[in-house]
């Protein structure tokens, strides 16, 4: 959603990873998050703090583009933990979420053993086939192995019931048993952040194990602050005008009201065009950055431009 899709962010060398104890209160965590460029409100800071202290997964729901995924990345940064991201989709299976055997390499290994006439001790051969090096760790297993870590289960509402049930099992005791290898347990349970755009009602059993937080669009001052922090090159005036116009767009009852992510895209687009303030003409030309439905664009165009983007 916000930022690029980097799979893993490794902690910087030489930093000792802070433990949850380093954040003595939600306010301390909020300050740390602010330093990374993520501006949480009180509720979100409390939610993140409790997730760390209670070691409970954090279930974030809200409109697209309010900063759910960005929070997980910011939390990874402040705790100096690596982040593992699992993007959910329908039909997601254990072999893509958990682990898979690298069958091709196993086959090569077997052939190599045959060529070397080393196939007499079958027990040993079998053990060598199911070695850890032939195991492909997927995000859930990676997050448990690389403890402590941050596990981002993104858009869990896109997965189906089967996967939800399976996720419930992993999240309840943070162990994964691999029949050929044994049980893998996280030394410290990962900080789990689940996000949902609410395209589907996620099962109550999963939600009950989590802290639930509904993210709203930020208020005006916070939105300006987010724009200024994330896009330092944008002028204060442009940031305020974009935030004002975005807030107005949200009141128009659009098919897809713009989120913070769209406001940022818009400000970046305006800046790319060299705009230092929001005038009706530039606004109309860059509307594609903030409105994603033809009906919405038509609607906004039909309104008096001055009413929306007046200086």
């Amino acid at each position: 959603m916000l930022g690029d899709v980097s799979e893993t962010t490794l902690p910087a060398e030489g930093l000792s990873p802070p433990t949850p104890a380093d954040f003595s209160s939600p306010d301390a965590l909020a300050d740390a998050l602010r330093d990374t460029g993520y501006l949480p409100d009180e509720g979100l800071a409390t939610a993140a703090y409790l997730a760390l202290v209670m070691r409970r997964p954090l279930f974030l729901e809200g409109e697209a583009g309010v900063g759910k995924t960005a929070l997980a990345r910011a939390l990874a940064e402040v705790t100096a933990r690596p982040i593992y991201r699992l993007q959910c989709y329908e039909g997601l299976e254990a072999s893509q979420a958990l682990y898979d055997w690298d069958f091709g390499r196993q086959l090569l290994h077997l052939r190599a053993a045959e060529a070397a006439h080393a196939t007499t001790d079958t027990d040993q051969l079998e053990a060598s086939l199911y070695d850890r090096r032939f195991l492909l760790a997927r995000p859930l297993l990676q997050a448990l192995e690389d403890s402590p870590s941050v596990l981002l289960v993104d858009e869990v509402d896109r997965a189906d019931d089967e996967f939800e049930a399976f996720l419930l099992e992993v999240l309840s005791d943070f162990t994964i048993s691999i029949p050929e290898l044994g049980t893998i347990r996280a030394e410290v349970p990962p900080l789990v952040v689940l996000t949902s755009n609410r395209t589907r009602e996620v099962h109550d059993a999963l939600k009950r194990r989590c802290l639930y937080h509904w993210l709203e669009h930020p208020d005006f001052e916070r939105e300006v602050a987010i724009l200024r922090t994330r896009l330092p090159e944008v002028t204060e005036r442009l940031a305020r005008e974009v935030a004002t116009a975005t807030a107005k767009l949200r009141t128009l009852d659009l098919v897809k009201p713009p989120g913070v992510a769209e406001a940022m895209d818009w400000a970046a687009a305006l800046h790319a065009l060299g705009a230092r303030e929001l005038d009706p003409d530039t606004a109309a030309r860059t509307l594609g950055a903030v409105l994603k439905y033809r009906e919405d664009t038509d609607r906004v165009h039909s309104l008096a431009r001055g009413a929306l983007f007046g200086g």
Partner: protein
Amino acid sequence: MAERDVVATVLGFARTLRVAGVAASPDRVEAMLVAVGALDVLDATAVYWAGRLTLCGSPDDLDRYDAAFAAYFGGESPRMRSAPADQRQVMALSAPLESGTGEGEDDEPSDVAGQASADEVLRHRDVAELTVAERDELRRLFALLRPAAPMRASRRRRPSAHGSVHAARTIRRALRDGGEVSRLMHRRARPRPRRVVLLIDVSGSMSPYADSLLRFAHVAVRARPAATEVFTIGTRLTRVTRELRLRDPDKALAASGSAIPDWSGGTRLGEVLKAFLDRWGQRGTARGAVVVVCSDGWERGDTDLLAEQMARLRRLAHAVVWVNPHKGRAGYEPLTGGMQAALPSLDAFVAGHSLAAFEELTGVISRV
């Protein structure tokens, strides 16, 4: 506050919350106690968030939570409200499901002889014209409806004799055979039931049919609980899927009846359809689904809005079916403004006035 006081206070608050309609289960309450312990017990804001994060499970819970918090702890809840909390109407618990033409109290036991042919006649009778006894009979027959689900291909695959080669299984098998690929294993997409969304008009003009339509919905929900969603429409939108999952039809109908605040009121189809699409449809409930609108198309609001929303629904849904009880009458023409607005966006337009019509409807739903 002593620890015992905290526990007692939290338990009392959880009780208040349950009365307000938030299912604060014991494990959630336990989580709240831990959360309160991790924060400052004397800080009202901290207690507010500790409870909200642990006891709530959906955005619907939040308003109720805020109200219960204010009522229990006194004072304002810290959350800033952008819109005024909507007025939750107090509803009568006795659901007016018996609306219609009850002609006297003829509670005589029905005679068993000739039952089969009587059933046959009853199946084709307009439910609006039945007596109370006949209605009871018909309810029994509803249990015999067997709705077939429409299917769609899914991203999940299953082993199969044909289809694309399943590399992992092929090589796993080869490993068993000493590294020799002796046989190719295949897999193909597993079909899954397509979601069916029923939107049932419970306004005054539909009241003779609402009971039967909800019974039909109950049968559909019971047959495919995970792939069926039911909403009632009138002056507002109410999701009754959860209530209709109860096994017993009468209990399920009573539960959904008490959940519906706008029973036998007016109809604002366009507005309510828009509410459905904004809140549920666009997010996924209507995407790729078979959406069945059960209404007579009497629109008190703006028919342009209805036409616009029907077009939007059509773009999201796999198929849109309209069920109009009046269509079963001889000489019916879809002349109401609402019907005229909806017709261009429909894949099927069927009757829904008798059990036979409902049987036909199950066929339409599984075929479109």
